[in-house]
């Protein structure tokens, strides 16, 4: 049972998702399965029915509503209307570039930080890993709230600037732009990359590093030729998870309070709650579901394929 070594990550979404599909055949069919065939399948029925009632049925209604314009009947009218609007196109563009940018940032930052925690150990490294766990259990919007105090119009950075230079206002005014959202997303989602990376690094045989190093390889070369290939599955899994989460992030954008930054989830919210335009909200929701379920499916396939 070599799998026993990876118990450390039982409690978190990323690791749970990663390890779910990774061990086919671990639960051997109990003796006498054939005799109890029908009852075993029947046991799965109640939770599936509950899920269908509270989740699948509502989703189906959203899809149905997206084909039902306010004028009545069933038509593609809501889709053509929404796709023609600039608000939707801009939201789609903003969502995608923010998600891709934040994912790239998280991967770079997460890889560097995990590298140090795993391979240049220092006293307190365990505490850092614990801190990351705690960090993951806080909601995302707290980061935006904190950034308001750090880079806000009267926050820390601008306060220092005006104190030092005597200027009337500071230069940090990016919080209500997409860059503020990007910074908050990178901050919040980097730990989601670090978790699977640290798990992967802990399984790496350090003798390989010692051998490479004793043969004269410089640290940069060891990272490139030994560690990076080992880390690729974890990077792929963590990166695609973060990509999906960034696409769906709502709290950070809402707290930024920027009129100029509209992402797809934000558009769903404003169409449904602020404008009460349910068909349009449902159309945006269907597009959002298609993108994120598609990517999530890809993430599951990738993480299963590489066995991360």
């Amino acid at each position, binding site marked *: 049972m070599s799998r026993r070594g990876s118990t450390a990550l039982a*409690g978190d979404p990323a690791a749970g998702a990663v390890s779910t599909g990774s061990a086919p055949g671990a639960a051997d069919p*109990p003796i006498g399965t054939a005799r109890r065939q029908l009852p075993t399948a029947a046991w799965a029925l109640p939770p599936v029915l509950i899920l269908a009632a509270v989740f699948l049925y509502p989703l189906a209604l*959203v899809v149905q509503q997206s084909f039902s314009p306010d004028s009545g009947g069933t038509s593609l009218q809501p889709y053509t209307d929404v796709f023609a609007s600039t608000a939707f196109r801009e939201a789609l563009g903003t969502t995608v570039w923010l998600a891709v940018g934040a994912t790239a940032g998280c991967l770079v930052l997460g890889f560097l930080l995990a590298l*140090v925690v795993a*391979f240049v150990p*220092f006293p307190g490294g365990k505490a850092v890993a614990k801190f990351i766990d705690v960090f993951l259990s806080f909601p995302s919007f707290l980061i935006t709230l904190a950034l*308001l105090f750090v880079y806000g119009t009267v926050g820390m950075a601008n306060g220092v600037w005006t104190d030092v230079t005597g200027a009337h206002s500071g230069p940090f005014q990016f919080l209500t732009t997409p860059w503020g959202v990007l910074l908050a997303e990178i*901050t919040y989602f980097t730990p989601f990359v670090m978790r699977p990376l640290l798990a992967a690094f802990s399984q790496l045989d350090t003798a390989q590093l010692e051998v490479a190093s004793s043969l004269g390889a410089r640290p940069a070369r060891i990272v490139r030729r030994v560690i990076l290939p080992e880390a690729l599955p974890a990077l792929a899994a963590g990166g695609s998870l973060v990509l999906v989460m960034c696409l*769906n992030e709502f709290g950070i954008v809402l707290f930024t*309070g920027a009129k100029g930054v509209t992402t797809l989830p934000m558009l769903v919210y404003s169409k449904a709650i602020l404008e009460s335009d349910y068909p349009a909200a449902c159309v945006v929701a269907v597009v959002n579901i298609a993108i994120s379920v598609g990517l999530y499916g890809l993430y599951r396939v990738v993480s299963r394929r590489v066995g991360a």
Partner: protein
Amino acid sequence: MLVHSRGGRWATWTVFFALFLPVFALPLLVIVAASFATNWSGAFPSGFTTGHYGAATTGDSLQALTTSLVTALTASVLALIVGAWAALAAAALKKGGRRFMDALFVLPVAVPSVVVGLAVLVAFSKPPVLLNGTRWIVILAHTVLVMAFAYQSVSAAILRLDPMYEQAAASLGARPLLVLWRVKLPLLLPSLTAAAGLCFALSMGELSATMMLYPPDWTPLPVQIFAITDRGSLFTGAAVAVVLMGTTLLVLLGVSRIRTRASFR
């Protein structure tokens, strides 16, 4: 050990903390610092006060705290029951069936939570089940959202379970239900409590779906924080945020104590 020279190690650590502290530790510290301040226009907050905590633990905010606690507790328990049941049932299925259950029960993670909120709103604002305007619509949405995480952690734990125990029990003549109750569930208890803690923390911080659904008399903490900061009372918002973080941490700590005690058995 990747870097062998002493100087190189110190340089690496310096770079590490120069990245780590501002990016991860600073935001949390800043919120705590701001919750005690009346003013922040320089490098450091000024005007020490505990007054914001007075506002954060009375009236609307206190009600929001109890609302959040009740919602998170109910949603976690419901999600854990359904999720663990589904995971246990899925583990007994053949490979195809297990894949199907896996895909089905992780779907709520893949669907954006705002959309889950919208879907629940659309579905339960009309007969046959009319929940809009009640607290149950919020609890229902939270349950759906955290159920996937409960399912994932429990099914990951089942995969790691040594099948020898249940096979031994079964070979001694124990019926499947007895094996489940006396062997599987006790062995899974640590993961179940861990999953419960995770569900609770997620539900405490849930904002997206809640924003779509909350009735005026059932305002959870994240919505309350948004309402306060949106009004411009950033410092009170920070104090309420500290209350939220503290409560979440306390519950997680309590849950991890249960876990260590259970794993001694």
